[in-house]
């Protein structure tokens, strides 16, 4: 009898344990945490709610903040863009703003990578406005780079458009640095020219200087 009681107790205990360990379900709970202090960082991490307004991790910089860089070659990209988001300044930018980056095979290649990440899904592989978004949804297609409207678009207007957006296109300033914008423009110009390098006299001159 004693033995049987022991067996019985073991059996009951195992059933109970199995019942507990089977408890799964709440998708909002990641699971059991071992040593919570190692997961809760004393240093401020991104996207963590510290339930304290004075400790917030992702913040908008103060207006007018300029990125600091000790790299003199890239310093110019951090200066503010002096044109406002208006039609007049769009035209002005078209006349006045020119790329600090020359069009070389290297910059076109770099621009192609950025284009693939940030432009291709709307403007399409060769800039015809046939990317995944307008092709697979009701979203209106952007005009083709080598079509009537954009064939002769100056690079200053391209820069202004990426910075502020135009028409259906939104501002991409938060995703692309000024250097990225100028780099991708080299590839856009390449597509605008029907997939050929543009012999740009002004850029060549500035390189020689």
């Amino acid at each position, binding site marked *: 009898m004693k033995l*049987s009681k022991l067996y019985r107790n073991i059996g009951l205990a195992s059933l109970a344990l199995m019942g507990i360990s089977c408890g799964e379900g709440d998708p*909002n709970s990641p699971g059991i945490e071992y040593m919570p202090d190692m997961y809760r960082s004393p240093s401020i*991490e991104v996207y963590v709610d510290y339930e304290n307004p004075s400790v917030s991790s992702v913040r908008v910089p103060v207006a007018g903040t300029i990125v600091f860089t000790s790299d003199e070659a890239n310093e110019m990209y951090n200066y503010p863009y002096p044109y406002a988001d208006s039609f007049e300044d769009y035209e002005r930018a078209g006349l006045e703003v020119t790329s600090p980056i020359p069009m070389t095979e290297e910059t076109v290649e770099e621009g192609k990578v950025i284009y*693939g990440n940030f432009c291709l899904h709307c403007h399409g592989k060769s800039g015809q406005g046939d*990317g995944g978004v307008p092709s*697979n949804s009701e979203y209106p297609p*952007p005009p083709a780079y080598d079509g009537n409207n954009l064939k002769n678009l100056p690079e200053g207007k391209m820069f202004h458009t990426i910075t502020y957006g135009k028409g259906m296109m939104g501002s991409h300033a938060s995703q692309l640095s000024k250097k990225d914008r100028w780099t991708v423009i080299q590839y856009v110009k390449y597509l605008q020219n029907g997939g050929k390098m543009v012999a740009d006299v002004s850029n060549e001159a500035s390189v020689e200087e």
Partner: protein
Amino acid sequence: MNTIRLINKPFFFLFTITLFFTVNASFAQPDGAKLFKANCAACHKPDKDLVGPALKGALERWEGNEEMLMLWVKNPQKALETGDQQVKKLYDEWSPKGGMMTPQSLNDEEIMAVFAYADAYAPPAPKVEQGGKITYVKQDDSWLWLAVLSVLLITAILVLRSVVNVLQNAIRIEKGEDLESAIPVGDSIGNWLSNNKVLTFFITLFIVIALFIKVWDEALAIGVYEGYKPVQPIEYSHEVHAGKLEIECVYCHSGALQSRTAMIPSANVCMNCHNAVSEGPLTGTEEIQKIYDALGWDGSAYTGETTPIEWVKVHNLPDHVYFSHQQHYVVGDVDCTECHGDMTKETVGKQNAKLTMAWCLECHNTMEIDINSSAYYDEVHNRLLEHGEEELKGYLEDGKITVRELGGFECSKCHY
């Protein structure tokens, strides 16, 4: 040669005639739909206002002033300078949205064809989505059914037992024997167990081993959040955005290109498309409205009242480990799917990998490095040539250089 020419002549003639008529036909009747798509569709819709006004009914609106309409399409700046009242009204109303219209190099006929297309335009019948809404949260109800089933089985056992007792007693009454009181359930199980000791031993052994494996598995899963997919404030769908619409991962998670974190995009990135798209294929306007509420967008302007979207963080690394997306994605050229799986089939964010140290090292151990991919490796290479040519030869023995051989197993690579 002559015969060939003779044969070819009629064909050539026919070809020329056909070509002439085709070209002539296209000149005679410009294709309004095609012209609209190529020149106007970026800002106008035939039947709805977009960046510019709907083109349907434009001819009616400009009746008696068609010449000015033509001038406006061809050269808006010049049309505005004429001081025409209708042009001025149009400009004042729409320029805050889209600025000045782009001058169109179309002739009068082509412009008329576009307006004719817009006037005749009928929207396509709305597509009926098959299958209805996607369910984002799967409630696991299987345990409830198991519980009900076990209650039913236990009841059945007890009922059958008492039936057996009643029948046994009936037999005893028949035979004229004394009635025996029923043996308690616990004692009867105990009796059975002590009568079948070998079997009991194996059952117990099985239970203990199964339990041990279960506990072992559970213990290994402590702190491992593989498959963690919390409910998010917005029922975002990666399937629609990255899958159907083919948007690159880094378009939204652009932090992966330049920082540790891949970033949840700020809502202004959503608005690059959603300023115009207020209705989605899965959840209608409900979820997209949450973006507008967060940004204080009333459909045409920002009110300035913003509330943050409180996303739930999915991937949590302990404090004592350092991981950088930039280093892996940009320098290491590791594809997003290697760690995050195929997100084009997922709704909201999900932890696909274990994110344990063993999981990291598995990859560090075997991942080959493309020495030519970055100038960083030139430096490493030169240092090795200077200080340890033997060491370099060791690396090249098996013909490949892995992350491990360049220090991917050193503690301080990730723990600092």
